[in-house]
């Protein structure tokens, strides 16, 4: 097991600068990626280091329940110290055993009831079930900051919802990967590296990003925006499609020979790319998405983009500060993490750790 498993706060702080962040999102590359374990480590580290700023926790959708509602295997629970702020739905709060003081009713409704902002007055277990829409997450953060302006706001993602953790909501991201992703250390390192590349896709130059910001403001609801012409005098044109999937042909035919930037709102999947790539004039441009979490593409598709001289860019960049490896599979089998760590550290440009179990 990696030395880091001892849980030295100094290491985590030095590696990631966690103590200076205002907000953090924990994203999982797959289901059972170890997000909750990672969160528990952060909480413990925070406490051990005697940090006085409170943590403010919420999740996208549901997390922290003791049993995986899909597979039935036992899942780690979230144990918070007194003073922590929690934003969670009514029904999830009933499953929490920390003494919770209700601070605000958010008026944000989920399947598990209204999201309620509380402060833990004692240590204890909490179950997180937060909102699922970006705007709602922002308003929850605002509500929490009304009570604790200086808190570290941590957003715990849920399975297959990593897209929501982006959109400029968090200053930094911890990416969790588990042995579910691959049993071959080399493959795992490669896959993680690719995911990291996608997540950290570089931002557009400021002036171009400003043009897009202006275009999205003046064309609300338009999912496709193109910038064409001679740099720096780019013309804005838009296309009204209900989605990107199924409209690849329409989008490609709207491209002009001098279109330099194509912005597509929403998820960029292999299927959308396939449709775009089947049109020959989809070439020699920069494909822009909101942020790195919108890119759901396979390495193969990425290679095809390179062949067409299509670059990728985002409006809001994401900074991944740490990759957390979870060697435990959903069925409870625990692999030796060292070979994985070795491979990943060779390949990845960000620190990789196995924090060890923290199934409190």
């Amino acid at each position, binding site marked *: 097991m990696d030395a880091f498993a001892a849980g030295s706060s100094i290491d985590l702080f030095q590696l990631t600068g966690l103590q200076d962040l205002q907000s953090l999102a924990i994203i999982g590359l797959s289901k059972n990626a170890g997000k909750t374990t990672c969160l528990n480590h952060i909480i413990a580290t925070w406490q051990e280091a005697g940090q006085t700023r409170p943590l403010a926790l919420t999740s996208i959708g549901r997390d922290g329940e003791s049993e995986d509602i899909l597979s039935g295997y036992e899942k780690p629970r979230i144990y918070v110290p007194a003073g922590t702020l929690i934003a969670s739905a*009514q029904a999830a709060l*009933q499953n929490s055993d920390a003494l919770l*003081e209700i601070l605000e009713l958010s008026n944000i409704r989920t399947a598990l009831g209204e999201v309620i902002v509380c402060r833990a007055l*004692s*240590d*204890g277990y909490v179950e997180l079930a937060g909102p699922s829409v970006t705007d709602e997450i922002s308003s929850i953060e605002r509500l929490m900051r009304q009570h604790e302006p200086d808190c570290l706001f941590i957003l715990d993602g849920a399975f297959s919802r990593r897209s929501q953790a982006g959109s400029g909501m968090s200053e930094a991201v911890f990416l969790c990967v588990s042995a579910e992703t691959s049993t071959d250390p080399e493959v795992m390192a490669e896959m993680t590296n690719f995911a990291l590349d996608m997540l950290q896709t570089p931002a557009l130059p400021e002036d171009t990003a400003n043009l897009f910001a202006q275009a999205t403001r003046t064309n609300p609801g338009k999912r496709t925006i193109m910038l064409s012409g001679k740099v720096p005098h780019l013309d804005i044109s838009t296309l009204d499609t209900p989605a990107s999937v199924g409209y690849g042909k329409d989008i490609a035919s709207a491209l002009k020979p001098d279109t330099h930037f194509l912005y597509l709102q929403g998820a960029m999947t292999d299927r959308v790319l396939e449709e775009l790539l089947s049109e020959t004039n989809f070439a020699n441009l920069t494909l822009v998405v909101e942020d790195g979490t919108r890119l759901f593409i396979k390495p193969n598709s990425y290679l095809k983009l390179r062949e067409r001289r299509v670059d990728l860019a985002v409006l809001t960049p994401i900074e991944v500060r740490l990759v957390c490896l979870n060697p435990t599979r959903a069925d409870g089998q625990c692999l030796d993490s060292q070979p994985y760590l070795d491979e990943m550290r060779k390949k990845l440009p960000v620190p990789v750790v196995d924090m060890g179990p923290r199934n409190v």
Partner: protein
Amino acid sequence: MQTSVIISPEFLEDLGLQKVLEACRCRSPQGAKLKNRLQFFSNDSRDALQEELDAIGRLILLVRANNPQITEAQTSLSRLRELKGTLTRLDKGSLLNDTEFFELKSALSIFDRLGKMKSLLDAAGINFDDTKSAAALLDPAGTGNPAFHIYNDYSPELSEIRAQKNELESKIRQATGPQRKTLLTQRALITAREDGEEENIRRQLGEKLAEWLPEIHNNTNNCAKLDFRLAKAILAVRWNGCEPQLVEQHKPAILQDAFHPLVAATLEKQGASFTPISIELRQGATVLMGANMGGKSVALKTIFLALLMTQLGYFPSCESLQTPLFDFFAFEASHEGDLNRGLSSFGLEAVQIRNHFRKSKTQKGLILMDEPCRGTNPAEATTIVQALCNTYGNSDSTFFIATHYHVKTAPGIRFYQVRGINPDSLAELPNYRSAASKTDGTEENSATDLSSMAMNFYNDDLTRVRRIQSLMDYRLEEIDGVNQAPSGAIKIAELLGVDEELLHEMKAARQEDQWQHSE
């Protein structure tokens, strides 16, 4: 509301009542609900209406004076949540959860805050019940902290359990491995005891709070009333509403300089202004005649909306208004028939004529008709309209009709007309011929697609129509009804460049018609 106001759904939208309701912005769900209930005040509830109007009148003074309590109250009201579910559960003796207690605590603190705004409440004519003792139940230590949890102060036993638990949690913080696991198991046991005691407290707390239910309900209703009255006062200031004077039942409704707030706002955006309308509507029939394009429909809507708003407890947009209280309001605008259902327009009209008449036999109605029998043959339509005027002329209801058909004078029938275009202004209008060359069969676009089949207006013509409209004097004036002026349609046709030979025929036909009427 349903039986007191009879209008078609299409006209309801046309009338703009929904937009009036939207413009009247309540802050609390209770206020919005009260507003949407659309309470109609008839003569039976005259005192309640008077009280409502007086309160709005007093609140307007505070709004105009920028009294800080207005904004303060609105902020508090906007924080009030829908309490119905929680109060029902409390009433049924169900065990409330902490969120519901928090909701009640917030509501009680809002009641307390509003209850202290003496000048505002005096103006609004509202008295809050004192619920401080109920609020104290949810803040046992009296800290004034708006947050809520089951406090240690509720029971020494709870306090004791939590002290033990707290001690364990401190140990857990230091422990690792199996020792931590053991401590966590111990904690689970103590948490179960804590849960049990908390549940006892929730039950007792619920029982104590339930004793305050009448006052809580009363104050919730007070919030709704305050919110709605305040919103109406603010709307009245925004739309220059006046306090209507409620007069005895046999007296006429008199509107001085009434305007339709929504039409006025639209015109203002276009750089034009709304011509205020004044009229006296007595019991019996009133006939509104006047030129085409004279704004008769807008006048009818304006009058109907002002009188309806009054009986819904709003200040109407008028310089002044006095009115008796009608038992029902009906507005019948001639529809084009229901194409989808294949129903004839007159068939539908006849149904409404029948219904309104039957209702008017026992109740005092305000019945407005905008060009009834529009699609009927003119000779028969004229007799129907005359019959309606004669009959309503002798009733207790107020019948107000805009029509092009000739109505003869009879007892109980009064006449108004739109002033129309001043002849002096017409003299200033330059001669005009429409773009004749474009209509001589040499159109550039000879395509026969559907869009080219639809009629297109040329810009010159549209400008001209607008110009004539701008010369129109929309004010209403009472006339004797004997010397009814022609509606001005032929004059307008002339101004829009209808060809000489056609105009000649029109004028000749009109002359012949007038001879026949005078015989």
